[in-house]
């Protein structure tokens, strides 16, 4: 318990968390501080490229075994099934109707790559490292949850065909393609490749992450300021309980596969995190009736900060205890 608390305290007072808090505070104070859209996108391209590449290079260094395949499959299974749990919980805990509940559920089955990135850097500073291929697992977990959500809605009568075009958009959305592509490049070019671009993707990484989290704080804060009234106690509770549940599913998966303490932590983080880029876009296309303020506020305004501050240290501590690592 002490270890968790001290880790959480360290984490809370790190530049990346404080940058997020600064963004939140600036938004609440209605400062005009803002990051241009193009710059925010540029930062996210950098983060995806860097995290993907490093994952690939790490796979090149450590080799792979069957745990890679098992992890990918487990990721798929989690992404497909978590929305069902989330949907059930939401129907019980909140007054959301089917469409809104399914839309929210899709977000929790999918993942947030920035949470993953932040988690990885906490792992690194705690002296742990996850399996490099976990970025590939992150990529496969983005999309399936969307299918589950649409299936949940179809089940309840309001047939909603997933058209092929949307399917293609979701599977080939920019984040997935860049993450997987950079992963493959890192894998192919290995240590040599990493040496060439290390001072771009490794050294300044945490600093870039600070600026990006500042921006996320601004966006989340503005969203919260506008939509906090939508957050009923039930929804708020869901936004904190659901990641814990997800993390336990991730724990189970990671332990069954036999991942390292780092890998198990990352699995927990992935399962606990909620999408705020790919899934919202897909929901606007497939479920325009669902209120975006609900799912965005919950995912970006509640669950993301929770994971960033308390969640990650908790998952890490649990993973350490569970794996004895």
């Amino acid at each position, binding site marked *: 318990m002490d270890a968790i608390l001290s880790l959480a305290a360290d984490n809370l007072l790190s530049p990346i968390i404080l940058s997020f808090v600064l963004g939140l505070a600036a938004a609440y104070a209605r400062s005009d501080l803002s990051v241009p859209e193009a710059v925010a*996108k540029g930062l996210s391209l950098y983060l995806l490229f860097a995290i993907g590449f490093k994952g690939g290079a790490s796979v090149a260094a450590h080799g792979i075994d069957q745990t890679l395949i098992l992890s990918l499959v487990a990721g798929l299974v989690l992404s497909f099934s978590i929305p069902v749990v989330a949907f059930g919980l939401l129907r019980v805990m909140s007054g959301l109707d089917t469409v809104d509940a399914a839309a929210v559920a899709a977000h929790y089955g999918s993942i947030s790559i920035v949470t993953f990135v932040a988690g990885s850097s906490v792992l690194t500073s705690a002296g742990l490292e996850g399996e490099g291929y976990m970025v590939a697992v992150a990529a496969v977990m983005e999309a399936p949850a969307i299918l589950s959500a649409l299936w949940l809605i179809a089940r309840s009568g309001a047939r909603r065909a997933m058209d092929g075009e949307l399917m293609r958009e979701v599977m080939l959305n920019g984040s997935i393609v860049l993450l997987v592509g950079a992963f493959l490049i890192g894998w192919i070019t290995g240590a040599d490749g990493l040496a060439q671009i290390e001072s771009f993707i490794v050294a300044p990484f945490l600093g870039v992450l600070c600026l990006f989290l500042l921006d996320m704080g601004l966006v989340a804060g503005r969203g919260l300021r506008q939509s906090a009234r939508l957050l009923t106690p039930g929804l708020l509770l869901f936004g904190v309980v659901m990641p814990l549940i997800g993390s336990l599913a991730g724990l189970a998966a990671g332990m069954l596969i036999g991942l390292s303490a780092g890998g198990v932590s990352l699995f927990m983080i992935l399962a606990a995190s909620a999408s705020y880029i790919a899934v919202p876009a897909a929901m606007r296309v497939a479920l325009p009736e669902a209120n975006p303020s609900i799912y*965005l506020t919950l995912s970006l305004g509640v669950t993301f900060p929770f994971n960033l501050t308390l969640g990650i240290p908790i998952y890490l501590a649990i993973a350490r205890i569970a794996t004895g690592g």
Partner: protein
Amino acid sequence: MQTHKAKRVEIIIEAVMEKRLTDALEGAGVTGFTVLPVRGGSGRSGAWSRAGQVSRAGGMSCVVSLIRPEKLDPLLEAAFKVVERHIGVVSVTDCDVLRAERF
């Protein structure tokens, strides 16, 4: 200068639907359109701004198309099918254009 009667259709639509809209316009025989970026706005579903956003979800595009008057109805039908379930607005203005052979 010689000008010709035409219609200027302006469709403000969710960015995620932009491609579907322009595909539909092309399907309806529209020969040209221009897409303007949109920075923010407000409507019944609340206010929004692109500042700092990464996802395409919270954003709109503005598609402007100049067309011959007789093509208005097919265009609106096509556009309506796309925007129907979505937020956004469609407006039509009378205008005069140069170089009618281009439309």
